[in-house]
């Protein structure tokens, strides 16, 4: 703006200022009432439309976070049940199958109840759409569900029905049905990670490399935890090993998500998401340590460890869900990374090496 055009003007008091509405908003401000946690990334300065969010927060509520847990649990337990079936562990098989089916039923309820129009849930079945992880997931569940329920039904048949012809046929079909469902279980456990990552939600999209392993690890930990809870110590060795391996994967991947040098990692390390995930870490770690030590001998310890693993898995899912919601509420998570990306691109075009993105993308 030139002042040399001869017009008499009062001096601008705000020389160099951009505008007063685009006041600087600090990141991590919304929803961060933790106080103790320090954001990993330095507070970023950015402009916005009166500090309003750019994105819509997910309209999904706690039911979807709960489904992430029940879906994973169902998958983990289905794998355990198939293994127990093949290696002759009847109690572990029976209750893993039942638990897996119960978790699947809960999942179905949660998914349908979260729809804006639950009575139209079957509209999901009118297309198969590879570009939509929700459509892919629908068909994975359609393939996974019947075998899972059939196997569980065979194990809980009343003795009276067991002897009849349909009862005998059902028990004959239980093993192939259970194996078919177990074959699809890893897909059930991992597709939800893609479901969350393929959104514009900054925290979820940014973690797309880590979420699948976090979710399958969490599924294994919860499935193993269920096995430890329901089966006698003598039969539960595979459950303990699966729980320990899953817990290790879950904890290490969760840590890797927190340690990413991106701004979006701040959504995981601050506020409610952080508190949920830290509680999850304690529970999962405790459950895993017990699984490889005391739970080998003591049934009560095994049950407690199983419960801790289940709770840890659930809290991890709620924490991840919460991080995504928090990242849409604060425009910093949208504006700052995109602005940096633009500036890097511009610098590259001008031939100057721009500031490198810490994670190398």
């Amino acid at each position, binding site marked *: *703006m030139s002042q040399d055009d001869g017009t*008499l003007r*009062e001096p*601008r008091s*705000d020389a160099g200022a951009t*505008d007063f*509405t*685009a006041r600087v908003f600090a990141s991590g401000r919304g*929803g961060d009432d933790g106080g103790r946690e320090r954001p990993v990334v330095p507070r970023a300065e950015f*402009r*916005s*439309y009166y*500090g309003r969010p*750019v*994105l*819509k*927060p*997910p*309209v999904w509520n706690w039911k979807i976070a709960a489904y992430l847990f029940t879906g994973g649990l169902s*998958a983990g337990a289905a794998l355990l049940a198939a*293994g127990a079936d*093949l290696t002759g*562990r009847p109690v572990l098989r029976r209750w893993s199958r039942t638990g897996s089916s119960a978790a699947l039923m809960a999942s179905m309820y949660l998914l349908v109840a979260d729809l*804006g*129009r639950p009575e139209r849930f079957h*509209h*999901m079945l009118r*297309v198969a759409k590879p*570009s*939509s992880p929700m459509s892919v997931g*629908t068909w994975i569940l359609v393939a996974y569900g019947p075998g899972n329920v059939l196997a569980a039904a065979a194990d809980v048949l009343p003795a009276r029905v067991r002897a009849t012809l349909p009862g005998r046929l059902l028990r004959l079909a239980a093993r192939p049905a259970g194996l078919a469902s*177990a074959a699809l*279980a*890893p897909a059930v*456990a*991992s597709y939800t990670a*893609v479901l969350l990552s*393929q*959104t*514009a*939600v900054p925290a979820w*999209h940014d973690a*797309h490399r880590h979420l*699948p*392993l976090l*979710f*399958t690890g969490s599924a*294994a930990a919860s499935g193993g935890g269920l096995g430890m809870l329901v089966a006698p110590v*003598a039969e539960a060795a*595979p*459950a303990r*090993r*699966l729980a320990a*391996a899953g817990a290790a*994967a879950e904890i290490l991947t969760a840590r890797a998500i927190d340690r990413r040098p991106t701004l979006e990692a701040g959504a995981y390390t601050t506020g409610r998401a952080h508190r949920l995930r830290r509680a999850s870490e304690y529970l999962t770690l405790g459950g895993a340590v017990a699984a490889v030590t005391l739970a080998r001998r003591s049934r009560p310890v095994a049950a407690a460890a199983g419960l801790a693993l289940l709770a840890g898995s659930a809290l991890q899912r709620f924490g991840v869900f919460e991080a995504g919601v928090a990242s849409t*509420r604060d425009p910093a998570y949208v*504006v700052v990374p*995109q*602005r940096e990306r*633009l500036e890097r691109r511009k610098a590259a075009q001008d031939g100057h090496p721009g500031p490198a993105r810490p994670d190398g993308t």
Partner: protein
Amino acid sequence: MTNEHSLHGPLEDPAADAGHVGHPPRVGFFTDTSVCIGCKACEVACKTWNDVPEDGLDLLGMSYDNTGMLGASSWRHVAFVEQERPLGRQDPGLAALPTGPSVTGVQQDVVAEGMRHAERGGAQLGTGPVDVGFPSFELPGASTGAEGRTDFRWLMSSDVCKHCTHAGCLDVCPTGALFRTEFSTVVVQQDICNGCGYCVSGCPYGVIDRRPDDGRAWKCTLCYDRLRGGLEPACAKACPTDSIQFGPLDELRERADRRLEQLHGAGVAEARLYGRDPEDGVGGDGAFFLLLDEPEVYGLPPDPVVPTRDLPRMWKYAGVAASALLAAAAAVFVGGGKR
């Protein structure tokens, strides 16, 4: 899926990629915000023609914008920005006037605080009301003396669904309710939508939302019914300054380039096109803009990318994780006997 750029990158003809044959040319909006006067005729025309319900009668206490943002029941939103800088070499002519910012710092703090505690961080604006607390009874500028007088400019921009070449909402819709029309626009079929809400999180612009009372997702249809009847969309029809221009996209892009050149020649160096570039993260917008400041100042993301771009990579990571789970589940049953 007929093209290597079906998921991202430049795509010449989205309608053909979606399977339309012998379709009309791609149409869209060019919104030239340099001539927008903030009259909101577009908001009214849209509501009237499309029978869009009330979205909350609010006073937001931040500027003359009381709509807030696009939402399920606001398909056009006129952003209103006040800044302490003149437009180009313009003389705001304020030397003798007792003017000042129409929003005070106190008001902004009250509103920002209200937003922080609002249920969805204020993002339900455009769909429902938000109680931010009445900010102030002060008259705009009343408390500012001569020393507070400032050069200022008003930025107004009518925001709308961008009808992206690669639409995040369309890609993730699991029911096929969202579809690509023969005009290459993106429309929700309300008799199909079951309100799963995936599109709300799939949109990198935060446009589409679900109506809480109705349960379905709603957004701008680019007046699909009017297009089929050979009419231009209601907002473009109502715009008194031709800030909203409707037409075949190729033509609009040429027109926008000419207008940008003209403005740069006139000394408005800050003018820029937003959503014009077919090489950008969403393959170019069907509704693009000429802006006078950075996009984030208008509440637009500076560099949006369709989430689908990373889809193959995401499934690859999921495949690795799923295989690891299967391997782990098999391994725990091998060895160790029955214990």
